[in-house]
């Protein structure tokens, strides 16, 4: 593993190893003093072309807990706005002896394109509607902690799967780890071809949640209404919203995940979010652990060629 661009390209073994490593990192987070010297002297660039405070902070803290130096580059005010291409920016940064680039971009494939021209590790922090591999890992880790294992679980992913990079990474991780996955949402937001991947595809929430051990609720982009893909947020909520009532379709001990940020009262209700079923805060904590694991794996030795 040289870069972390997708989970699609990783085996169940690779993913399992990363989760084990992340579990160790999670224990560091429980210590009173969290800083370990593992990546001392390494410098990392956080290149965020799409705003995401949470993911950026999570990566930044992960790097800092491992004693790496981090700089943040954002689109506004960057040289990209002055006509320099993204590729130029990245090349220039790598000339400054940076050891890794973490990139978030609104266009699918940009991290892959970048990885082709850079000699240093590139970590995909979310590209367009393609993948968000560290999110997929943290979701898998959270499930493993909640249920003790991932293999054999049935996980329902609810919402705008078509445009969701989280759903894509979740699907690859969960399938690789032996889970069953069903996806459900409005027909206009559901990639029917996913059946080819071995995923159950349905527009019926009840069917998707039947026997589910876990529910990953996706954030609904409100502009889906203005682009004509759904009639209204209200109708969406009635058919695909996770409420105390619809939660009953799943197993009694089913857990609820959400990659955040949540639209309370649209795709998920507050009483579900704030219930004991919800593992959302644990996801956030695991996000740091997973990112520490990824940085350690790519920068801290232990390279397996």
């Amino acid at each position: 593993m040289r870069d972390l661009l997708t989970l699609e390209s990783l085996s169940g073994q690779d993913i399992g190893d990363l989760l084990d490593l992340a579990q160790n990192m999670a224990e560091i987070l429980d210590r009173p003093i969290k800083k370990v010297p593992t990546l001392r002297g390494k410098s990392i660039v956080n290149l965020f072309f799409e705003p995401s405070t949470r993911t950026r902070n999570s990566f930044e803290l992960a790097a800092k807990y491992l004693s790496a130096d981090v700089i943040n580059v954002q689109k506004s005010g960057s040289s990209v706005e002055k006509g320099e291409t993204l590729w130029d920016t990245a090349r220039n940064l790598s000339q400054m002896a940076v050891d890794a680039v973490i990139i978030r971009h609104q266009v699918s494939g940009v991290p892959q394109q970048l990885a082709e021209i850079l000699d240093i590790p590139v970590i995909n922090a979310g590209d367009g509607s393609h993948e968000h591999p560290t999110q997929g890992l943290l979701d898998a880790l959270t499930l493993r902690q909640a249920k003790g294992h991932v293999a054999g679980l049935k996980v329902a992913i609810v919402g705008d799967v078509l445009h969701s990079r989280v759903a894509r990474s979740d699907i690859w991780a969960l399938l690789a780890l032996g889970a069953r996955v069903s996806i459900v949402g409005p027909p206009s937001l559901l990639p029917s071809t996913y059946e080819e991947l071995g995923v159950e595809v349905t527009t019926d929430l009840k069917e998707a949640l039947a026997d589910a051990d876990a529910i990953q609720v996706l954030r609904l982009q409100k502009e889906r209404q203005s682009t004509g893909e759904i009639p209204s947020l209200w109708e969406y909520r009635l058919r695909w919203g996770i409420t105390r009532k619809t939660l009953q379709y799943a197993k009694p001990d089913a857990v609820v995940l959400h990659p955040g940020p949540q639209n309370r009262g649209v795709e998920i209700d507050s009483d579900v979010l704030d219930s004991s079923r919800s593992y959302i805060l644990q996801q956030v904590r695991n996000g740091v652990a997973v990112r520490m694991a990824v940085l350690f794996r790519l920068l801290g030795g232990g390279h397996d060629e």
Partner: protein
Amino acid sequence: MTNKAETCWQIQNVRVIDPFRGIDSVEDVFVVNGQIAERATATDCRVINARGLWLVPRLTDMHVHFRDPGLEYKEDLFSGSQAAAAGGFTVVCTMPNTRPVVDIPSLIHWQITRANEIGLVHILPIGAISKGQQGSELADLYQMAEAGAVGFSDDGHPLVDSRIMRAALSYSKTLGRPIIQHAEDPLLAAGGVMHEGSISHQLGLAGAPDEAESVMVWRDVELAGLTGGILHVAHISSPGSLEALDYAKRRGLRVSAEVAPHHLFLTDEAVREWNYNPVTKVNPPLRPDTTRQLLIQAVIKGLITVIASDHAPHHEDEKNQSYKEAPFGISGLETFIGTIFRVFLDAGLLSPLHLFRLITVGPQDVLGLDYPGLIPGASADLTLIDPQVTWTVDGQQFYSRGKNTPLQGTKLKGRPVATMLDGRFTMRDQEVLV
């Protein structure tokens, strides 16, 4: 500057494949003063031993983008002419989506004059259907036809307004020149950067479905029926479009279609294989293999009668962007012959005579032109092809300014080795002779 010896050529023992006359036989071809001649009239000829080579008259690529005027940094009439000669073509039809748009007779006239000055290829311009390709008012079709426009297209800007399309098709009938439609419902295709299907879903790239093309082809076929007009579907690429084409044939309408070599050779898998490199980004997009096979079958059955490159050169900096931002297009002239050889000849799907019909008689019929083939007195526009040579595509070697090819590194078999325009060699051994 021509001396006597150069005005007469004897091309010896060449396999003549002349779709205009339906001939495929080994013989000698004589060229005297720019024209095909009888053996008897030729004396003091320069002799070319062409054993093992194929000779084909007047290869026509009826869909190229030369970007001139206005976007010469991508391609101009000179570099485009060089690319055409290198690719083996003696006739090309240039699309009007330049800056300004070619929508007035003087621009048609200018392109033809400039092509004659360059002297590497006959350019038969295609004029815009609507003023400025805005889709709201018909351009001066008659005057452009008088100036030499061989057809009309708003290529790149599908003609959405059905009333304007109806009017354009009505006019086409009176002018005997086709309306060439880039069929695409812009709203259905909105945002799409590749074919919508399992690959786009996995890559997370916005897709345009097959039907974005075929719904418009069906509409246009109905309008061709309503008007009796001459409709030509550019770069056809979807199963539903083929159904519409077949329906039009059965109704006896004047509807034809072309297909591009890249749609016959590549699939949307290439987008994944190229790892989001926009070199595979083309409109219409590369389709799945099932569609590719249907397109090949449609060519074999004679439903599609033309292959055209849709040569769309772009500057490196423009293609060097994210998949979403990069422009659509493949630089296709210089890989054309090798690609269609791979698709049809290597697989034994077509005879050479049938294959060459698609880039000789096919486009000439659509455009209502009347080249007679290799008979005495005909212009000596011809191409010598080495069907055996294998070569590896390298865009950096292209004469075209557009080096953008998803065939980079691909091994092809068969390549033009000489191109002759009006009796003068414009290319020999891959060197364009200005």
